[in-house]
């Protein structure tokens, strides 16, 4: 069975500072990986995804994540954060090509708070 670990439950950073939110996964087969973002009092929306091809994927608002198969990681980074990035971020995984491919498993989330 697949699983996702987000080691940091909260990450406080100052505005315009860089940030990294960590995500590690476990799966016996190859995976699809996702980062979803939840702004206060809203549902979740996709931030970026890795399906295949280039291991570095980017979002339209400056976030990027790199799939590292050997370390089973998919860390999310941004070189300079803005107040509007304040949200909770969830890493998610789908195991490809077997009966578990229907399940989408989420990590416990990382709350990013930006200080002015």
């Amino acid at each position, binding site marked *: 069975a697949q699983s996702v670990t*987000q080691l940091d*439950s909260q990450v406080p950073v100052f505005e315009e500072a860089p940030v990294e939110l960590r995500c590690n996964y476990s799966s016996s087969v190859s995976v*699809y990986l*996702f980062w*979803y973002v939840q702004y206060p009092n*809203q*549902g*979740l*929306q*996709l931030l970026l*995804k890795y*399906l*295949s091809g280039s291991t570095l994927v980017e979002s339209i608002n400056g976030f990027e994540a790199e799939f590292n198969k050997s370390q089973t990681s998919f860390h999310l980074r941004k070189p300079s954060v803005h107040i509007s990035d304040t949200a909770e971020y*969830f890493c*998610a995984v*789908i195991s*490809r090509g077997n009966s578990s*491919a*229907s*399940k*989408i*498993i*989420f*990590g*416990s*989330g990382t709350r990013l708070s930006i200080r002015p």
Partner: protein
Amino acid sequence: NAGVTQTPKFRILKIGQSMTLQCTQDMNHNYMYWYRQDPGMGLKLIYYSVGAGITDKGEVPNGYNVSRSTTEDFPLRLELAAPSQTSVYFCASRTGTGDASGANVLTFGAGSRLTVL
């Protein structure tokens, strides 16, 4: 195009009562999911469905039931509400599997906040 619609948005139940959370999607998605979100716990998968007439258990199915009689609807039923079921519930859907862009991306509803007293 409404996407994924959940009702009700808020509900307070007494212990032992039953209720159904409704979820409807108008995107003709095959796959539908119910998650619960608790502080510090992320999203836990309750049940999911890969198509009409097919459902399966997720990570935390106890105390819940689902049905999928149509492609559009995936209701979640709580038979005997307990305080441990106090949570925010999210319904989500996606088209299907494979590498096609978008096929594996979930569209979420706005959530249903349930309190059991």
